[in-house]
């Protein structure tokens, strides 16, 4: 092997070629996966706090019977925006951010295969977020739930712009999700380090891959659904109008064909994050690693056969719904395999108690409970009782907070050294964890009982004497405790990034995957030299080449071309799909403002549709065409 004696100019050259342009324009034009990934993560963290604040206001409203803090309109806006923000602006972008930042590093790549598309995904996400939030400025906040059931959302019953903000904003977020998914699928298929055959891909990358494939199948039906609804609203079509021969249930089918897989799109990458944490904390290979990957794929496929279990009360015949009971039950088996693999990995003990590991233990604790209530509500007769009550609210918060939020918080602790080079304080982290864990259970466990006590969802008030008072107050108290936990978590993040805070070492946790082989934060070029992966845990096997050495004159020519970019081009290595043999070299763009212009053009178009301005819409569509054409024009950066 080479020794680190070659001239430092190689690293400087790499750093220069892969680094951002100077100045604000350089910052705007960054397309590299690390810049985009970090932006996704921190923007979506902001939305997590925003969504959480909305939830606290809702809990305040519900703390006492006949309370009047926000009134019905305000409450409806709150729960609509809470759901929309948490689903579309927090969880999915956060997981995308982690995938975009971490997955190329775990695969030993220098960038994503289509960096400009990556940047476009981010800008469209930001634009969609601003679009949705601007509804508050316009005083027309969406108020019909994140599920936007027709006919309530048709112009007849929701004449304002509220729903147009929602439909157009969500469509932009969907576009962002779809392009990110395309990118991740390509990345995982063709941008792996030599030697990283399918069986050696880290579980987190597998999970991102499965979720991305799911996005490609799940998001288009919602885009179709929202476009049809917007046509109904703006052009007077009757797709969902029962009186004119349309069908209100069409929306529900389209929505849940997206909406149910969406739940697992939010879960699966988080499972992958938890798997990375548990492997590291237990210092062992994941128990039943292949079974875990197979289970992730199985969940991904099965999740497309469940959508009707959101519609048991719509009068669909019992025989049909019973089939969906069986299909929903089947999800429990791969989920069970994954949970058991986690426990099996821990089995030998010698666990290192980092805060991230505490979040994984909390994940098992909470997620199993959510899974069990999931089996309950999959049973048609019981769901007739539980559907649209607080039992379901409790159920899916157990699944999503346990299965998604806790792994994400653990993942922030775990990967923060790699993201920014700073390490979060463990003591503050434990306090935040304890408060989040206790607060969460206190807030949501009583809601199971409230549901069985007859409390429907989405009610802004309730009368005295229904037996709901005590449990609602308990739930509100729990939500405040969790609020304090999240506050400590946020302060911890800010303090860790104060100027002069200690820097993290390259591998603070003794982890196994490739991202820990390079500096913290990851340098512009990710890895310096040649790599070869010999096992699923390249940092532990003692045989893999980890890309830390400078290129040697003995390296093959293509390797030197990659690691000594004298041409000034960003070039990446494409490898074969199955065995990750080096295949060919791809030149990647490094700086472009066209993704930003395209996102702006889309926003202009959406605004034109929103305010019924044909002129603005036409200008926007023209701008889209111009931006896309310039982007694709050979030689334009």
């Amino acid at each position, binding site marked *: 092997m080479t020794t*680190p004696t070659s001239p430092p100019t190689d690293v400087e050259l790499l750093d220069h070629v892969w680094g951002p342009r100077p100045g604000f324009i350089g910052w705007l034009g960054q397309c590299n996966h690390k810049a985009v990934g970090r932006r996704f993560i921190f923007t979506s963290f902001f939305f997590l706090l925003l969504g959480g604040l909305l939830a606290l206001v809702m809990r305040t409203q519900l703390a006492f019977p006949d309370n009047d803090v926000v009134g*019905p*309109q305000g409450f*409806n806006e709150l729960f609509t925006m809470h759901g929309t923000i948490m689903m579309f602006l927090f969880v999915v972008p956060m997981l995308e951010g982690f995938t975009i930042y971490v997955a190329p590093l775990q695969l030993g790549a220098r960038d994503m295969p289509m960096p400009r598309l990556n940047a476009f995904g981010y800008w469209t996400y930001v634009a969609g977020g601003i679009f949705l939030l601007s509804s508050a400025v316009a005083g027309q906040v969406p108020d019909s739930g994140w599920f936007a059931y027709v*006919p*309530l959302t048709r112009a007849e019953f929701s004449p304002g712009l509220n729903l147009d903000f929602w439909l157009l904003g969500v469509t932009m977020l969907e576009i962002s999700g779809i392009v990110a998914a395309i990118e991740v699928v390509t990345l995982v298929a063709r941008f792996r380090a030599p030697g990283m055959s399918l069986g050696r891909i880290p579980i987190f990358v597998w999970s991102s891959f499965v979720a991305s494939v799911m996005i490609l199948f799940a998001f288009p039906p919602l885009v179709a659904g929202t476009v049809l609804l917007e046509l109904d609203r703006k052009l007077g079509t009757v797709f969902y109008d*029962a009186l004119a021969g349309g069908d*209100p249930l069409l929306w529900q089918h389209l929505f849940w064909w997206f909406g149910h897989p969406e739940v697992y799109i939010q879960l699966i990458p988080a499972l992958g994050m938890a798997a990375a944490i548990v492997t590291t904390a237990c*210092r*062992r290979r994941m*128990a039943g690693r292949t079974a875990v990957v197979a289970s992730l794929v199985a969940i991904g496929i099965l999740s497309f056969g469940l959508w009707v279990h959101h519609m048991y009360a*719509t009068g669909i015949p019992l025989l049909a719904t019973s089939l969906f*009971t*069986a299909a929903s039950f089947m999800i429990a088996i791969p989920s*069970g395999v994954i949970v058991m*693999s986690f426990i*099996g990995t821990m*089995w*030998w*003990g010698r666990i*290192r*108690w980092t805060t991230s590991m*505490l979040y994984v233990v909390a994940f*098992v604790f909470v997620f199993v*409970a959510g899974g*069990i209530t999931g*089996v309950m509500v999959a049973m048609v*007769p*019981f*769901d*007739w*009782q539980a*559907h649209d009550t607080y039992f379901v609210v409790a159920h899916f918060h157990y699944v999503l907070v346990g299965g998604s939020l806790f792994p994400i918080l653990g993942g922030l602790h775990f990967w923060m050294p790699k993201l920014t080079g700073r390490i979060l304080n*463990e*003591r*503050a*982290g*434990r306090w935040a964890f*304890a408060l989040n864990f*206790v607060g969460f259970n206190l807030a949501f466990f009583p809601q199971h*009982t409230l549901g069985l006590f*007859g409390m*429907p969802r*989405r009610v802004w008030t309730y*009368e005295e004497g*229904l*037996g709901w008072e*005590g*449990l609602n107050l308990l739930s509100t108290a729990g939500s405040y405790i969790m609020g304090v936990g999240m506050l400590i978590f946020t302060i911890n993040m800010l303090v860790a990034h104060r100027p002069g805070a*200690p820097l*993290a*070492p*390259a591998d603070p946790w003794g982890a196994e995957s490739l991202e820990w082989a390079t500096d*913290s934060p990851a340098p512009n070029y990710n890895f310096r030299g040649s790599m070869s992966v010999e096992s699923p845990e390249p*940092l532990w096997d*003692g045989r893999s080449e*980890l*890309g*830390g*050495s400078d290129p040697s004159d003995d390296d093959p020519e293509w390797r030197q071309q990659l690691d000594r970019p004298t041409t000034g081009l960003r070039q990446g290595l494409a490898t074969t799909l199955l065995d990750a043999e080096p295949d060919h070299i791809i030149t990647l763009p490094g700086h472009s403002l066209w993704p930003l212009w395209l996102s702006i053009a889309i926003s202009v178009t959406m605004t034109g549709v929103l305010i019924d301005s044909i002129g603005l819409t036409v200008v926007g569509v023209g701008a889209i065409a111009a931006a896309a054409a310039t982007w694709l024009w050979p030689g334009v950066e």
Partner: protein
Amino acid sequence: MTSPTIRRRWVRPALPVPAVLMAAMTSACTSAPDRTTAPASPQASDIDGLWTLSLWLGTAVWLAVMALLAVPLLRSRRQRRQDADASPETHERPTSSNGDEHGRSGWAAPGAVIDEPIAAAEPDTRAAAQADERVRSRLLWIGGIIGPAVILLLLLVASGRVGASTAHIERPGELVIDVTGHMFWWEVHYPDHDVTTANEIHVPVDRPVRLRLHSEDVIHSFWIPRMHGKIDTIPGQENWLSFEPTETGTFRGACAEFCGIAHAQMVAWLEVQPEEDFDAWIEQQAADAAPPEADSAQLGERVFIEAGCAACHAVRGTEAIGGVGPDLTHLASRQTLASGIVPNDREHLEELIIDPWAVKPGIRMPPTQLSSEEIEALLDYLETLE
């Protein structure tokens, strides 16, 4: 070194959680009058049985998983104590080729204490490794696949059986009632008796009831927890909900599907009566409104017709035939107002007429500008509509 004391610090606050929750649950358990776990029909009773079965099985599964999870956590703790006593026998982790440039020793983030040697925590002996492998394989096969599959099959059969016994099928001798969801109230129509009322459904005890559910505007969902689960009312579609009340009394229900601004205040009441009481009630409801006798009530009737009430509300036997709001022919015989949310007394009725949004924000009834004499007369009239 992450000492056990640090770990106990988070364990301790977490311990009272289940205790507090259990206490809260049990104390609250008997206080909710209209809970699904107090069935008043065979249908709700069957569903409650299914719930109880799945609750026991689910609790057992959860406890079993937690017990399995506790094993490595406790072992890890014991291991740590042993390691603290003896010098740890650990294999050095193979260092990565580009190393730790910042140096582990020079790094001093407060509280982030990972200064022990990093090692792959594999079992030390061959025998231990084999035992470990056996456990892990059993965890996956029995805990992850076979165990869940057996329990799920059991629940699938139970769910199917309860589904069959609670299906919304036609039953001999049943009473059919049309229930129509409106924003934000329930129209109730007895087709066999040609009786129309609102929000309060009277049914005889021990006779199968079948509700034919429609909607005039958006999707609502009709739900009386102690009778049966909920079924949506969907425009352009007819859904059925059938149950057989076996207990007399008043049962609360509500709209369960979000239907707009006043969704929270769209309550329905079910009055289950002995057969003869029901017969008397339906006969009384079938009659037209009696013409008012007192002067003030006669004035009130004119106010009702002329001030616009009649544009939306019908009073059978008068010129008022509006079909937008609830039929008021026998308003005074109802217990509640504004879709079951306030008691039907003069005070609330007055508030509802003058400032409907104060009673129920979002209600579709407009406020009425009337002099106080007109209001009094109107109230007098409405109180005659028994």
